[in-house]
C-alpha cells in the first residue's frame, strides 16, 4: 500500500472523525469462553487527556488491516488508566480481536453515541437488569453511580447468564454482593453444581423480586429476546415507558450518522443511540 500523496494524520477526532487514535492493549481478561475484555490506553498523551466520555457511549475498536467494530466503553468515566471493552466473539473483527495480546496496537475512534442521560435519574431508585454480554453497557453506568453513590436512591442489579461460566466480571461480583448499599441478585438459566444464587430466566426472577416502580428507573441490557420479555415484566410491575431505559444494537460502520445502515426510521443508532427509553422506542417504526 502506497502512502505517497498522503500526509501524516493529526489524529484529532473533532477534525477528522474517521481517523482512530492509536492505542495499546494493556491487559486481556478472559471473561467467559466467548467473551474477552481488553484494557486499552491511547498512545498519544494529549489525545488520552482529551478523551472523555459519558457512561453508555461507545467507540469503534479496530485492528489496522482487519476493520472496526462498535463496543460500549464499559469502564466508568472516572477510570483514567485505561478504556475497557468487552468483546463477544461473533464475526470477523471480533474473532481477530480475540487474538490480541498485551502490547498489541489497536485503533480507537470515539467517543460515539448518546450515552445514558444520568441527570434525570438522580434521586431515584435504580434497577439494573443485565443479561449475558448486556452487562457491559450496564457496568459503566453502575460503576459511575457507585462513584456518585449519594446522588441516587437504592441501587439494585439483577444479572443473569446461561451458566456460572457465562457470567462476565465474575471477579467483581463478590465485592458487589457484599456491599450494604447495593442489592445484587445473580441468576443462571439452569441448575448448576455449587451455585448459591438464583436459578431461572431473568424476566421470571424479576417478577419474583418485584421492584417497586415508584420513583424508580429500570435499565435493561441484553440479547433482544431477553430485553423483550424483561420490558414486558417491567411494564406489568408498573414501570412507565419513560422509566424503562435500554440500549440497541445495529450493524454500524461509520459511527457518525453518515453511512446509513443503522437507521430505524429517522433515528441512527450510532448517534441518536445506543441508549433509548421505551417511550422513544415506541415512537419508532417497527423494524428491530
Amino acid at each position, binding site marked *: 500500500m502506497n502512502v505517497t500523496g498522503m500526509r501524516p494524520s493529526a489524529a484529532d477526532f473533532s477534525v477528522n472523525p474517521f481517523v482512530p487514535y*492509536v492505542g495499546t492493549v494493556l491487559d486481556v481478561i478472559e471473561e467467559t469462553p466467548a467473551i474477552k475484555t481488553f484494557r486499552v490506553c491511547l498512545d498519544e498523551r494529549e489525545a488520552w487527556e482529551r478523551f472523555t466520555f459519558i457512561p453508555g457511549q461507545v467507540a469503534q475498536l479496530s485492528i489496522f488491516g482487519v476493520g472496526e467494530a462498535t463496543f460500549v466503553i464499559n469502564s466508568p468515566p472516572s477510570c483514567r488508566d485505561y478504556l475497557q471493552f468487552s468483546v463477544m466473539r461473533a464475526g470477523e473483527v471480533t474473532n481477530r480481536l480475540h487474538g490480541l495480546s498485551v502490547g498489541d496496537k489497536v485503533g480507537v475512534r470515539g467517543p460515539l453515541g448518546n450515552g445514558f442521560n444520568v441527570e434525570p435519574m438522580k434521586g431515584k431508585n435504580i434497577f439494573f437488569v443485565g443479561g449475558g454480554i448486556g452487562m457491559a453497557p450496564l457496568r459503566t453506568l453502575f460503576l459511575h453511580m457507585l462513584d456518585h453513590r449519594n446522588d441516587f436512591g437504592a441501587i439494585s442489579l439483577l444479572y443473569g447468564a446461561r451458566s456460572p461460566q457465562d457470567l462476565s466480571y465474575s471477579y467483581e461480583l463478590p465485592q458487589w454482593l457484599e456491599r450494604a448499599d447495593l442489592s445484587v441478585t445473580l441468576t443462571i438459566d439452569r441448575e448448576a453444581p455449587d451455585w448459591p444464587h438464583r436459578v431461572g430466566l431473568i424476566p421470571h426472577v424479576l417478577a419474583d423480586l418485584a421492584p417497586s416502580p415508584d420513583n424508580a428507573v429500570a435499565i435493561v441490557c441484553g440479547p433482544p429476546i431477553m430485553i423483550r420479555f424483561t420490558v414486558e415484566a417491567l411494564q406489568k410491575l408498573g414501570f412507565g415507558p419513560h422509566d424503562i431505559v435500554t440500549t440497541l444494537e445495529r*450493524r454500524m460502520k461509520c459511527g457518525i450518522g453518515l453511512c*446509513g445502515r443503522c437507521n430505524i426510521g429517522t433515528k441512527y443508532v450510532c448517534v441518536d443511540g445506543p441508549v433509548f427509553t421505551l417511550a422513544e422506542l415506541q415512537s419508532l417504526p417497527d423494524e428491530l
Partner: protein
Amino acid sequence: MSYFLPHDRLESWLDDLERTHRVFAPTAEGRGVVFRRRKPTAESPAAPVCLERRPTESARHVLFPRSEVLLAFRSAHDESGTRVEVFEQEAPAPQVIVGLRACDAKGFAVMDRVYMHGRYADPLYTARRKATVMAVLACVPGNGPDNACFCHWFASGHEEHDAADIVLTPASGGFLIAPVSDKGAEFMESHAGYLEQGNEELENAAAAQRLAAREFLEKHCPAPALSKTETAIMRQFGNSMLWETIGEPCLACGVCTHLCPSCYCFTITDETRGNAGARIRSWDTCLNAGYTLEASGHNPRAAKAQRLKNRIAHKFAYYPALHMGKSSCVGCGKCIRSCPVGVDIRAAVFRVLAADEE
C-alpha cells in the same frame, strides 16, 4: 451579468478552465454519457464533451468517489515495540463540474445537509465540495426532460439554484452563461476569455426555453401531494402486502442507488499489503441484504421488500422529517430509466398515497 459562449468555442473554453481547475465534464462512452476528468495535453486533446444528451450517471462520484482511501497506515517493529503511523488524504485541488443537470446539482444540496451540516462533517466531502464550482446545464426541449423526469415535483428545475454556481442555457447557436452564486461570479470573471457579453434578448430566449421544459414536465407527470408522503409512508409502514407488491419485481441489484445523485450510503473495509494498509470507503446500497446483517446472524431488513421500503421511506419520509420537509429524491429519473425490471419510484409513491387514502 451574463455571457455568451458560441458553440465552436466550447472545447477551447473548457481547455482554458484547466489553467486553474481540474475539469470534469460529460463524455459519451458507448450508450452512456459519463463524467470524466478532461486532462487535455499537448499530445492528446481531451475527449469531446457531450452536452447534447442527458448524462446517464450522476456526478456524485466527483465529490464522493465510488471508492477512496479514508486513511492509510504503516507499522514498524523494533526493540521498543510496534509503532503505527496513520496518514490522511491531502487537501483537494480546485475543480469544476461542467454540464451536470439541475437535478444532479440538487443531489449535492441533499448531501450537503448530511455531510457538511450534520452532527459530524465528513472532512473529505466537505473539502472537495468547497473546492468545486458547479456549472449546471439547463434542460431545454429536445435536450433534457423525458418521460422519466420528474424534477418539478421537488422544484429541482432550472430556476432553482440549489448547489449551482453557474447556469448554462443552450440558446442561439451557443450557451447563455449566468452566474447564480458569488463563487460562480468570481469564477466567470477569471474565465471570460473566450466569451462574448450576454444581452437581454438572449436572456429572455433562454428563460423561455427553460420555461418550456418545465411546462412539458408539469403536463406529462403531475406531482402528487408530497406533503402527505411522510405521514402516509409511516402509517403504511406495517402494511407488508403493500410493500411486497411494490418490491416484488425488484432484483435488489442496487443500480438505482448507484446512479442516484442523492444516495450516499457507504461501507468501510480494510486492505493490507505487508506492514502497510488502508481503510477504504466505498459506495454501498441499502438494497444489499448484507447491508444490515449483524454478526449474530440477525438482520432487521432481511426481506427485499423491507429494503426497498427503506430506500423509498428514506427519500420521502425520513429525510424530509429531518430536513424541514425537503425530500431527498431530486426527480432525475435515472433509477427509472436504468432499472432492469421497471421499478418506478413515482408509481411506488402514488401507490403508498392511494393505499393510505383507502
